[in-house]
């Protein structure tokens, strides 16, 4: 399913990006010593990973709240001007527990605590009193791209002027720190969407969901093999929906999976003039849903992105989801 540039009048745009990592950082070597990895240190280092951020004292909620507060502050926006808040990431009541007590938080799903929602609490604590507020779930690392896509659509169809999307993803505590050869980080990332912005415009979005791959354990081989052809399909479709030619794409803002897999995917997508922003793979690892926007912000701050450049954001939600978003800087 995709939405194209042709059926919109205003062009919603990214008005700001703010992110936060938890305080603690671990090297790949330390993670391996603590038996947090499945693959060898050598393999993961050769794939480009060095350090990741690990939440201990922080809760996903706290990090999400602080990231949104930072965004509001950095962009100097009136909280009451926000018409939509979409939360994605660590689900429900689990988000309130410090990472070290994740299991206690998870137990809350079996009680009436399950009705305590981070999205509502965010709205209250940050004074976003006019924001329609909800959460999206089950899209893994594509969550924040999906949230921006929804925000973009609602800005256009419902006349919402300003939306905030926030993801706060903590890797499950007992799952180690590796997801199919990728070293994972905890992080929160908040994105401001303006209904009609002058820069960083959201031109098109494409998502493909293949429900067959929902059972990632028993279909692991098929999941690994299907990643590349579907990723290529979605990337090219996103570019096409934006009305761009492959040779016009200037940047790919990736999700921070292994350098090796990006080498392979780049060979398959063949965007002859596109550079890949890989600086964050070594220093931050794969922050699940936040990668694309954290990379985008850092690339902007580094002066790497010039106004008008064409940028492809792509991410894969482990299992069934592939999403691409085209942004014109």
């Amino acid at each position, binding site marked *: 399913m995709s939405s194209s540039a042709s059926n919109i009048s205003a062009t919603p745009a990214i008005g700001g990006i703010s992110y936060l990592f938890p305080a603690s950082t671990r090297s790949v070597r330390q993670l391996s010593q603590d038996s947090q990895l499945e*693959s060898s240190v050598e*393999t993961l280092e050769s794939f480009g990973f060095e350090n990741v951020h690990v939440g201990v004292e922080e809760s996903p909620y706290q990090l999400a709240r602080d990231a949104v507060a930072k965004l509001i502050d950095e962009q100097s926006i009136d909280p009451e001007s926000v018409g939509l808040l979409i939360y994605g990431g660590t689900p429900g009541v689990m988000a309130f527990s410090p990472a070290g007590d994740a299991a206690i938080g998870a137990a809350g799903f079996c009680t009436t605590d399950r009705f305590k929602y981070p999205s509502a609490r965010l709205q209250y604590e940050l004074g976003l009193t006019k924001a329609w507020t909800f959460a999206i779930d089950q899209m893994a690392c594509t969550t924040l791209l999906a949230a921006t896509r929804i925000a973009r659509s609602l800005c256009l169809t419902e006349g919402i002027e300003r939306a905030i999307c926030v993801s706060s993803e903590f890797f499950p505590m007992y799952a180690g720190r590796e997801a199919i*050869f990728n070293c994972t980080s905890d992080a929160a990332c908040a994105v401001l969407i303006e209904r009609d912005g002058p820069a960083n415009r959201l031109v098109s979005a494409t998502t493909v969901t*293949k*429900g*067959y791959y929902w059972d990632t354990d028993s279909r*692991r*081989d*098929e999941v*690994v*093999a*299907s*990643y*590349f*052809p*579907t990723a*290529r*399909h979605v990337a090219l479709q996103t570019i096409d929906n934006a009305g761009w030619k492959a040779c016009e794409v200037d940047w790919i803002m990736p999700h921070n999976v292994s350098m*090796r*897999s990006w*080498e*392979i995917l780049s*060979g*398959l997508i063949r965007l002859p003039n596109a550079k890949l922003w890989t600086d964050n793979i070594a220093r931050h690892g794969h922050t699940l849903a936040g990668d694309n926007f954290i990379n985008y912000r850092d690339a902007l701050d580094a002066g790497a992105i010039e106004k008008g450049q064409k940028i492809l954001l792509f991410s894969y939600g482990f299992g069934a989801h592939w999403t691409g978003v085209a942004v014109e800087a």
Partner: protein
Amino acid sequence: MSDNNVLLVTGATGLVGGGVLRRILEAEPGSRAYVMVRDELRWRSTEQRAFGNLASRITPVHGDLTVRGLGLDYNVRRRLTREVTGVIHAGADTCFSRSLAEARLVNTEGTREMLALARVCGRSRRFVHVSTAYVAGRRCGLIEERDNGSSAGWVNAYERSKYEAEVLVRKADFDWVIFRPSTIACDSRDGSVSQINGMHRALRIYHRGLAAMMPAKPGDLLDMVTSDYVNDAIVRVAFDPRASRQTMHLCAGSNAITIGDLLDAAYELWGTDPVWKKKGVERAILTDLDTYTLFARSVIETGDPRLASILSSLSHFIPQLALSKQFDTTVADALVGHPAPAVATYWKAMITHLMANNWRCVTRAAA
């Protein structure tokens, strides 16, 4: 070939040797054959399944291509040297993943032993050697029906050992003919597959969505032939005087199929199966060999056991796709009297057959 011939056949329990022998015995009621087999029980089951009444004209003798002197009993060897009027050597190790030493032992040294035996068979008129079109190895473009040299190298040890066997055959000081089939796909009449080979296995892996990409361009040719064409051609030409010291491609040649057409037809057929369609398996991407190799190497290095073993098995075969070649069939077409059927005429029937039989063959699986 005249009646009352006595053939010595290797590989009679295999696809080609068995098929050729059956047709010769059917066509020449006065002929009989010795089959050199290494496993008596396997021969017995082949005999019952494939030869029926013809079996009374076949004498199995125990022998092994990997053993010096073929491991033939002294009296058996004497009998063969006195009676045999022609040798058909179709025995081989057709597994693509063997080490060079293993492949050479059966395919090169085994051929050396067979040539040595043929040399002392006083009545033998010709040594019929079944080779493979893929002795061409990494060579691309038009492949001629001759020794094209070894400078291009090979994709696997099988190809190399078969090339080295051809070199030995050409050096023989008696008459020979070399047949080079490409991949034997199925029977042209109904698409039935009587032996699953690397190509069928690869196809199945793509059907399951486990290989993701293919190192080829849409217009590259993939050559394959039908078992009936190969068997008929060998029977027809094996002892034809015009074929003396000739090498010929039993290949589709200009009737091969492009990778693009092959995939179009395959995915179209697979798409008619609602269960397959529901999975959303993406069409394999055609890419360059470097990208494919990086993908395969990454999976193998990261050690995902099942996918790694699938990709390593493909690694002995798939790189051939990136080495596009067209086999010249001028000599074969002239001697056989007609070209091999176009792949497009049976490709879909073969896939339909494989799908209907849950990717199993009619009889047995080989390499």
